[in-house]
């Protein structure tokens, strides 16, 4: 059985944009945590572009506007393509506890996320970005 979920959050439920070119990245240490992207502009036209985030395996989603972008542009950042490079044997507690489960990757939990984006204004420029925790309000760089 396949459950179809509308990823657009309730607070943005009247949006009529063409949310095309979707992309998903799953935290390999905790598959309940998923990041996704599409051609979805920031609903408030702010300086950041949003990614979709779920913490319950995709049952519900929120938009987190924290990807650098161009303020006021209709499609300021496009083709956001994400990957979560965490390792399956990380313990995902993100602390430096010396636990062998971390496999010498303490602090390198699966919530670290990379993204390739096309960024405007001006000509489209490819940027590769990283955030240490896509669930938090950490900015990308």
């Amino acid at each position, binding site marked *: 059985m396949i459950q179809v979920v509308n990823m657009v959050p*309730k607070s943005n439920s009247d949006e009529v944009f063409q949310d095309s070119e979707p992309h998903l990245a799953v935290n390999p240490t905790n598959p309940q945590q998923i990041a996704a992207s599409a051609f979805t502009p920031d609903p408030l036209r702010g*300086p950041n572009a949003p990614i979709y985030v779920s913490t319950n395996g995709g049952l519900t989603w929120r938009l987190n*506007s924290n990807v650098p972008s161009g303020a006021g542009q209709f499609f300021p950042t496009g083709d956001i393509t994400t990957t979560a490079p965490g390792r399956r044997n990380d313990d995902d507690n993100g602390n430096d506890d010396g636990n062998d489960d971390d496999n010498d990757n303490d602090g390198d939990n699966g919530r670290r996320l990379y993204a390739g984006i096309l960024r405007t204004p001006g000509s489209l420029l490819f940027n590769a970005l990283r955030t240490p925790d896509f*669930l938090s309000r950490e900015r990308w760089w």
Partner: protein
Amino acid sequence: MATSPQVDDLSRQSTFTFVGTVMELNAATMAEEVPVTQNTAVVHVDQVLQAPPMLANRDGTDITVLLRDAEQVQEGQQATFFTTGWIYGEDIAVQEVGHVEGRVDDERAAELAALSPGTPENRTHRLQQRLADADVVVLGMVSEIKFPEGYDTHGPVSEHAPLLRQTTIQIETVYKGDLPADQDMVQAIFFESQDIRWHRTPILDVGQKGIFVLDRREIQELQREEYAVLDPLDYQPPEQRDLIETLLQGS
């Protein structure tokens, strides 16, 4: 009291501006979706000043604000908050660009309100401006769609190509424009592409009725000027007829 340059600078950086009262620090209205920290606060929206459509009706509600510096505000304090979007879930959380103490004066509040794209007044104003700028405004029906003369239909096509088409509009009423009295049709270019790049441009179908707001524009692919239906305001559904007639009479 905030200076005008300070307010100008903050309003340029923000997309949602409101007069609010800080209800609770270290709190959030969306506790499951927003990481509550010492910089998150629940703020009561006393009056929206500048907002996109999705936040235009937030007067009297509570909203989560990520403060720049929680030590700069106190519970019970009223301020004018300049914000951008942060998290959109069951509700919305915004992040503060800055704030000024109390409510901005009436003149400045009116200036901020004029920046809101979502209010009915401003949508009507934009349509009125579009009608005033147009060369031709007609009520009619799309009777034919075909490739424009001289359009290369065989070359390589990008996924983002606009896919030009030429429509023939049978004219029922000429509201504006110097068309000959015996002219009963007008032709215009539109884009048939459904690509995200052209998402906002109107796509027309044979039999479609409405009001067409036309300008002669240089069409790069054709290297000539044509009437065009490219802006979202260039096509208005028949239900807009009374409003458009009123706006044209007033211009």
